């Protein structure tokens, strides 16, 4: 994964739990606390390792770390100057979810080693959204949950998330059913 992801995780830990916590997490994995460059691709193992170390250090399950990270990712990328590009994806939760796949596809030009996930979002007759998430990586579904929650917070739109299909046991991907409420106030 690109250094941007690791830096995002670093930013989450530093801003939420302090610099010392991040230093300890890196130390347990023999990593330099200030070593990630956003534009460089790093082995996925490092990211998984950091999530594992953070889970141990913070005493929360890895899935929860990933979910928090997913929610934080929206904020982080926005702060990193991707905010305007993010607007390109849409002005509502539904619009963004609809353009999420295109957004990831476009990013590939900037990050040649990028292996983007695929998202397919369709509106169902009952008004709920059906989101299919496909990825070459495993175990990141909690991050998608966090991401959706983060989007909801960003647009001040409550979203109920139901993880209807869990990857594995014959299921090649994850599926979610989302119930998006009316925005509480314009974003």
């Amino acid at each position, binding site marked *: 994964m690109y250094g941007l992801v690791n830096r995002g995780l670093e930013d989450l830990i530093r801003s939420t739990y302090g610099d010392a916590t991040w230093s300890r997490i890196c130390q347990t994995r023999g990593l330099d606390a200030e070593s990630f*460059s*956003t*534009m460089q691709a790093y082995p996925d193992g490092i990211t998984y390792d950091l999530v594992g170390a953070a889970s141990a250090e913070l005493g929360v399950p890895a899935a929860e770390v990933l979910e928090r990270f997913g929610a934080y990712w929206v904020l982080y990328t926005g702060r*990193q*100057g*991707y905010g*305007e*590009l993010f*607007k*390109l*994806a*849409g*002005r509502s939760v539904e*619009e963004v979810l*609809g*353009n999420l796949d*295109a*957004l990831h596809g*476009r*990013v*590939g*030009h*900037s*990050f040649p080693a990028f292996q983007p996930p695929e998202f397919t979002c369709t509106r169902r007759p009952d008004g709920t959204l059906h989101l299919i998430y496909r990825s070459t990586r495993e175990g990141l579904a909690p991050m998608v949950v966090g991401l959706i929650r983060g989007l909801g917070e960003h647009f001040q739109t409550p979203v109920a998330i139901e993880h209807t299909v869990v990857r594995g046991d014959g299921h090649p991907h994850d599926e979610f059913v989302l119930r998006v409420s009316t925005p509480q106030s314009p974003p």
Partner: protein
Amino acid sequence: MTREGLGPSDLDRVFPFHVAVDRDLRVTQIGRSLAKVLPQLAIGARLFDVCVLDRPREPLTYEVLRDRCQDLCVLSANHHALVLKGQIIVRDDADVLLFLGSPRLTTADELSNLGITIDDFGIHDAIVDFLFLSHAQQSALAEVREMAERLAAQRREVREAHQRITTLYVASRVFADSPSLAIALQVLVPSLAKTLGCTSASAWRQQEDRLICDIVFPERDRIPALRLGMSRGMIAGIFATGEPMWLPTGHNLADGIIPDPQPDSIDPPTIRYSGVLPVVPVCGLPVIDGGRVVGVIAFVAPTTIPRSDDLLYLLGEIATNLTKFTTHLRTTTELAAARDAALASVRAKTEFLANVSHEIRTPLSAVIGLSTVLHGMHLRPPASAVIDDIQTAGRTLLRLVDDLLDESRIDAGKLSIELATFDLVALVRAVASPLQATAALRNLPVAVELAPELRSDLIGDHVRIGQILTNLIGNAVKFTQRGEVRVRVRCVDADATTATLTVAVSDTGIGINADQLERVFEPFTQADGSTTRKFGGAGLGLSITRRLLTLMGGTIAVTSTPGSGSTFTVELRLARAPVDLAPTSATAPGSPNTSRTRTQPALAPAGTPTIAARRRVLVVEDNPLGQRTTRLMIEQLGHDVEVVGDGAAAIEAVRRTSYDLVLMDCHLPVLDGFQATAHIRALPAPTGAIPIVACTASVMIDERRRCFAVGMDDVVIKPLSPAELRRVIESTPPPATHLPATKSLGHVLDLARIEMLRELLDGNRQVALDQMIALFRAHAPEYLASIEIGARSRDLVALRRAAHGLHGMSLNVGASALARACADVERGAATGSLSSIDPILSSYQEVLTAFAALVGTA
């Protein structure tokens, strides 16, 4: 549309920003995204009413568009941020122009102004990808900039840390190497200026109510007669607070300012730098000595430097180290003074004791010597009893003086342990015997138990071991009225090279209280103050005993029950003599003093059967009493004696007359004994080779060494007992046996072997060689006696064995000629014939002479 062409809905999906116009440039068709962004460009609207042609820079007409359809076309919306970039396509079927384009965007910000989202673009449209790429590039650039800044900051930190470390290192080196504060400051001030990056530095101290500058670096910055007041300025501030200081910024001075003739008015004090640029002191630190600020070091830079906690900390560190340095200097100076005083006191005490020894021993020699002479005159009672008392009192006094001397010599580190092979059994008996006799007068038995495993082949200082035994047994006898004294000597551990002995001396005497037990080994201490009055003695015996044992690596312990008695137990580990050189019989000859290095005269071997031939002795002695005593004793021994009073007279005498022996006092008028001996040794043989024995009251080891250094053969200590005198005189070869000194050393000795011995016996080569020679001298006479007896009695077996023994021993010490002579006799005896032993006897004498020449030659 042609079959290959796109239908309107496909066109809209692929090119959502397209627009089609007719000949009048009226809009006939428009893409959904363009219509969304630019609603005024509706169907029927004229293109030139809504847009202008940016490229090509020509009027927006049908013809221009048609003719320039190969070129890039840029349309700008009037009063709108939208700029479209694309290409014109001329449709074949009608006079219609189709513009296929997309918004020209350079930053993501423009997107939100236009209100478009990602699905407003055709999928093939790379503009969005370009925006992401562009952003990624910006982001990477920002990151590189941030990294460069971080790197620069780190470099700055490293540079500063290096500067601090260098500064501290320089300071620590200065403190380590400087013998005084003044010298330290001379080096420190310029060094610190350089490492701190300052252009100038100075050291200040207080003189009355002014501060004066002692050191300025560089010297050209010195302003003669510059004085500072104590009330204002950084330097005065440091004096007042004793803390390092860092001047706040803002003291920028105009160019060309010359110090005010009234320096008090200058604040901060200025120092001209290179005659052009005025500067201000930027920081400084105090010099603290003995808890007081005694000076200030001030640093100057061309510009003020912003305050830095690190630099203040650094200055504080240097100031702390400087304080430690001054404290250390002070302590060192005080310690050195105390040490010098203590050493001087010890030296004075030692010298005093040595002088007292000399002064006491000289008249004491006369008292004992003259009383001995009187004793020899067989006076009638009660005169004879009085003489005995005088002798006893004299000897007691002498022992006391000797104890004091031993104590002072140990104090001065001048008492050395001299090693030689000795017979422990004989030594214990020799020491115990006179004490047993004394005790017997009081009906006090002194039992001596010698364990059967005790060895005779031990190496140690038998004189000192004898002294220890005398002290312990003597004390036991002295403090025991009834009961008995028991001496037990055991060998508790032994291997091929060493043996560990214990000597336990127990008595049934008065005993020692528990609280006094610890102090009995302290000098000048007796168990009870009244002991001295009752039993006599100076309380030095046990102290000397323990200190001697410590020197020999031994220990002493005491157990005691008051009223029942005490037991002193000595443990001592001694080396065993090498097998080849050990005496063959279990008992070594007579006196324990069989092989004492140096005290054994380098003349003829003790124990050699000699006829007491009449010798001619020259006594060199300046003290008339001493002259008379020695003369009388020598005459009583039946030898001829002549006496001279100084060294020069001695040289004259030996030139004029042939003597068998010179007894030389060391401290003489005109020429002293050392100079006289050196002169005599420079004379040609046989006069130059005459045996000379030093006769001195000094027992200091240095003096003995000096005697041997100038070529004396032996040293005896005054007062001389008749027995000692007899030994010295009669060990001199009788006149008839004097050998012409014709044979060279190489003829007698295997010099290569001698050199090898010197190499082998590592450490003090000469001393080791001397010990080998001493061992030879000690043990060869026995073999010689057996050879003589064997030859006389024609006992070929005994002769062969003795010749074999001497042969081996001679080879060991490199006496090659003697070894050959022995081998001849041995071979003869083996084949049943009795060869003449004369070659052995003559070779033996040659070896002794050769050894005498070797001894003391390094």
